[in-house]
């Protein structure tokens, strides 16, 4: 059956130029896109290349004059120095790593859960004040964070969250950008699909998790990437809300470590090594998540 359908499409392709969005394999016609993409990608990857290169530079290359972009004789010195500094502190660095992993995992899961539910209500239910609620969320997106720092500190204090682990998690969960994106994507899911499921007797949660969520997976993936990043790279909350060293994050630890040495030439190597260690999980999450993005519309049977 599937084979026959492919045949029909192929016949059509001979007569009409057909779009090649999301092709399955390489084709000569894609060459022009690579010609455009690869130089731009190289340009974009400059900071990563520089970061990696600097992290592996030995001392004399860091001092080299004029400075070189790429490393000539890579060494692990900078990483060893950082490990050495890490183990010297009172709290083992695995503790910071654990705090970061746990808080990031909680933030990603809880953000997805609460935003998905709220977006479903705002997109697919009818009730008074719905548009006002969504407008408030969008307005919050437009308020720059600089002026909110002190008020938010006071509210975190009021809630009794100062110096607790939850101070790293709770204030991050409501992500206006995330709700905005998920709701925008959910608007594209046809109401008929949901009604059909309801008529079949599916309960709200079933409709949401088994029918709607799979269709908007690309948006959920994007929000997950963003939530992970904001939690994983967050050094600010550890600095503002937490005194106890044993519940601070890895990002805070790295930034305090590298800012104490980063101003010297010799410290640049360590700072780069630290940034690289901090960056790697972002990279892994991005690849894991993006590889899950497929054309969900085509696969879910919505036409």
């Amino acid at each position: 059956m599937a084979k026959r359908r492919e045949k029909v499409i192929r016949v059509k392709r001979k007569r009409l130029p057909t779009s090649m969005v999301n092709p399955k394999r390489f084709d000569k016609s894609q060459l022009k896109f690579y010609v455009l993409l690869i130089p731009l990608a190289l340009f974009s990857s400059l900071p990563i290349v520089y970061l990696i290169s600097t992290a592996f530079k030995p001392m004399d290359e860091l001092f080299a004059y004029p400075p070189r972009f790429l490393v000539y004789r890579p060494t692990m010195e900078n990483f060893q120095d950082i490990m050495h500094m890490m183990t010297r502190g009172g709290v083992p660095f695995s503790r910071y790593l654990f705090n970061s992993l746990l808080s990031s995992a909680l933030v990603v899961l809880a953000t997805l859960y609460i935003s998905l539910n709220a977006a479903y209500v705002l997109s697919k239910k009818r009730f008074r004040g719905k548009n006002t609620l969504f407008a408030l969320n969008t307005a919050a997106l437009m308020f720059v964070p600089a002026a909110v720092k002190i008020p938010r500190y006071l509210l975190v204090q009021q809630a009794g969250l100062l110096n607790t682990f939850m101070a790293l998690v709770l204030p991050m969960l409501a992500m206006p950008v995330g709700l905005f994106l998920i709701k925008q994507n959910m608007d594209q899911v046809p109401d008929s699909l949901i009604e059909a499921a309801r008529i079949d007797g599916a309960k709200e949660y079933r409709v949401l998790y088994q029918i709607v969520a799979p269709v908007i997976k690309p948006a959920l993936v994007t929000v997950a990437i963003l939530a992970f990043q904001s939690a994983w790279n967050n050094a600010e909350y550890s600095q503002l809300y937490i005194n106890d060293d044993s519940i601070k994050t890895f990002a805070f630890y790295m930034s305090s470590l590298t800012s104490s040495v980063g101003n010297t030439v010799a410290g640049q190597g360590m700072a780069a090594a630290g940034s690289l260690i901090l960056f790697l999980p972002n990279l892994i999450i991005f690849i894991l998540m993006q590889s899950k993005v497929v054309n969900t519309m085509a696969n879910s049977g919505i036409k």
Partner: protein
Amino acid sequence: MSKALPRAVPAVPMEKRRRDHSIPVMLSPYALIFVYFVGLPILVAIFLSFTYFNTVQRPYLIGFSNYISILTQDTVFLRNVLPNTLKFAILVGPMGYVLQFLLAWVLTQVPKWPRTILSLLFYSPSITAGVAMSVIWKIVFSGDQLGYLNHLLMNWNLISEPIQFLTSPEYLMPIMVVVTLWAGMGIGFLAMMSGILNIDPELFEAGYIDGVRNRFQEIIYVTVPSMKPQMLFGAVMAIVTAFSAGSIGVELTGTNPTPQYAGQLMVNHIEDYGILQYDMGYAAALSVILLIIIAVFSRVANRLFAERD
């Protein structure tokens, strides 16, 4: 802000809809956290904009004084910050938006694995921006002959003396625009890419049967209309990020305020007052003004992309 027109009425009778408990149950977790950690702090900040607050003593009400001084006496704001911010946003917003869309579109024309790797490379500056910005671009634009750009220009005999790129007002703004565009492939870019990938392939077929003749027409008549929600999301994000950019100028020059206020943007001005001069009330008033500016521009975007069906 969004004026979504009423959708098809669900096939549930009125009485039943009224007893729909799922609305509060599903909405409240987000709503509670949003109100407490996002909404209330913003309300407090708006309240503070009507006070004098030096972060140490209790704030006291001074009415509209902050707003009046911003709009009548703050010469830096009127002469530098506001024009800079508008210029910067009008360059970076639309250009960044178009670039994000085009790049996203081109990436959807190649298979999955090259796409994942290439999109990661495009996206990476927006993650590493903080670290890289201060290092990479400072080396490229460094004011002595060791700066890569000066080095190149002098080797080609285009200039005889190194140019002080980062400290001279006429170069700072263009450099800020380029660097921001380069680091701008963020969440809007990812959202638009997934939007294109999620378009029903049959729509393209149908488009060609209906007379679409080339890829350009395909983008205009099929791709963009089929992903309006993502286009709107991308537009709002482009506006918000263009207006709330601020760290670039400071990171490049290493000072706030930037030399001769050449790269001074609203966010720098807010931080200048709030963090450096301890005048939170004034900083809050500036934030409210910025909010209003962003909201006005977003309304325009909303008009362009709102679903009209």
